């Protein structure tokens, strides 16, 4: 019996040696297909505790991520922004391929927490409130940039980042860049290709480029001649001093 057990262990060792290169190759293929992207390191262990970490290591990381997500929601109801960030960091580390988690984490930090920081009644100094607000914008940006690193094949996070640059940072050049990257995805909604030029129109030095792009869209037909596009055509015509005979769009006269 002992001899048999020794042979059995030897067979398992040989099997291990045979499968090892195949498994290493399969692991590479899994990673290339965006599987197993979670970073289960010691910093995560500190955030989620020993049991959570053990569960995540045992193949139940999605489950642990959901529990933390629900916890983050509870914290949101109590507006505990700092604690929310700790949960969001853990959740996005556990499930880096979940676009929803990156997007919502960025939204909470960039749009909700930033407003709360700016309107903080406990902080009388406006400069400090503005600083805190900007820090939350940056946190939102960080989530989206890391989200894009982990999900370069999904358009949603590019669009979210463009919106953050547009609405919060008021950086229209970067917003135009990220709307353009969103529009490059075949499955992205069609309005993003217009959004990139609306933002480009507000990016200093790129007005001519934006005007020509919007003009091209205008010439494509009625479907593209939407109120915002017409508005920006009118503004750019004036800004670029387009001669009256070359103006393709004449904005209606304001009501008296």
């Amino acid at each position, binding site marked *: *019996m002992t001899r*048999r*057990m020794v*042979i*059995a*262990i030897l*067979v*398992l*060792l040989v*099997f*291990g*040696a045979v*499968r*090892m290169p*195949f*498994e*290493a190759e*399969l*692991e590479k*293929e*899994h990673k290339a*297909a*965006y*599987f*197993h*992207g*979670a970073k289960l390191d010691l910093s995560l262990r500190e955030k989620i505790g020993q049991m959570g970490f*053990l569960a995540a*290591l*045992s*193949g*139940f*990381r*999605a*489950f642990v*991520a*959901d529990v933390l*997500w*629900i916890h983050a*929601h509870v914290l949101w109801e109590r507006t505990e922004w700092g604690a929310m960030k700790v949960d969001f960091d853990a959740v996005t580390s556990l*499930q880096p*391929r*979940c*676009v*929803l988690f990156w997007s*919502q984490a960025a939204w909470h930090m960039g749009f909700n927490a930033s407003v709360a920081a700016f309107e903080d009644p406990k902080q009388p100094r406006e400069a400090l409130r503005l600083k805190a607000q900007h820090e939350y914008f940056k946190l939102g940006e960080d989530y989206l940039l890391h989200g894009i690193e982990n999900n370069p094949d999904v358009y949603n996070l590019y669009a979210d980042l463009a919106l953050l640059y547009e609405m919060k940072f008021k950086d229209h050049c970067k917003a135009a860049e990220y709307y353009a990257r969103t529009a490059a995805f075949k499955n992205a*909604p069609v309005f993003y290709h217009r959004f990139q030029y609306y933002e480009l129109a507000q990016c200093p030095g790129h007005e001519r480029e934006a005007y020509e792009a919007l003009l091209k869209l205008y010439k494509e037909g009625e479907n593209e001649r939407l109120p915002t596009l017409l508005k920006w055509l009118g503004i750019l015509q004036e800004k670029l001093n387009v001669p009256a005979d070359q103006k393709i769009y004449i904005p209606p006269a304001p009501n008296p």
Partner: protein
Amino acid sequence: MTAAAPIATKHKIFSPARVTAIASNTLLELVRLKVFYFLLLFALLIIGSSFFTSKFTFQEQFQVLKDVSLGAMSIFTWLLGVLATAMLLPKDIEDRTLYTILAKPVPRFEYLLGKFLGVLLLLFVAISLMTGVFLVILYARQQDALANAARLVPAQALQEQLADIRAATFNKNLLPGIVIIYLKSALCAALTLLLSTFASSSIFTIIMSVIVYLIGHIQAIAREAYLASQTTTALTKAFLAIVALLIPDLNSLTLVDDIVVGNAISTVLFVKTASLGLTYIGIYFLVGYFVFSAKEL
């Protein structure tokens, strides 16, 4: 009048009928142990998860529902596979059923195969039932969300919203994900069977199986370190080699976490992953038989 001579039938070396008989009996025994009560727990768990997510967006609700359901499927099938397999041989020895069977012209290979197939059948029935419950609840939640959207969303944005809801519920990769869960639980069952052939008690088998399960999920780290020769000490290298060579890489069969969030699994990748799982099952079973065939009972 002469008595009819008994018809001499040739004993087959391998009989699928005998294996089927043992497998169906094993399944019946396990079913009689009321193992399917866990389904009630499963249903309660996934319905209960809805209460925690009622304030969430529909994407979040579906995400949690899928994560909880597939996570619960993984846990239940793994537990079922390990516990059912760990008690197969000790229970038969204790009940003396093993001696009754092996006293007949039933080879040990057929006995072990029949027992193992019984467990695989049990796992198949269990995962099929859980999948059924999961799909019904997911469909009901989808219909609920669609009805709410039709009621609340303005007409111009309705089609887009309905498409979003449909995309957030079912995706074609869910089924391959569930097949991989099944294979993983079957692998754990095969490993437990192997352990039980030389283990002295069920408790030992279960504990060893749980330990291997935990290490199996981080085996890839040991393999990478071993292959990259990151370490210089012979002792560490030997330890890494033993872990990498003896412990199965269970992480390679843990794809469902990423599938739930929309990761697509190509047919080639699915076939490769499933083949790896099936090879493990085959090898563990054969090695288990090799040990069992010479075991003194």
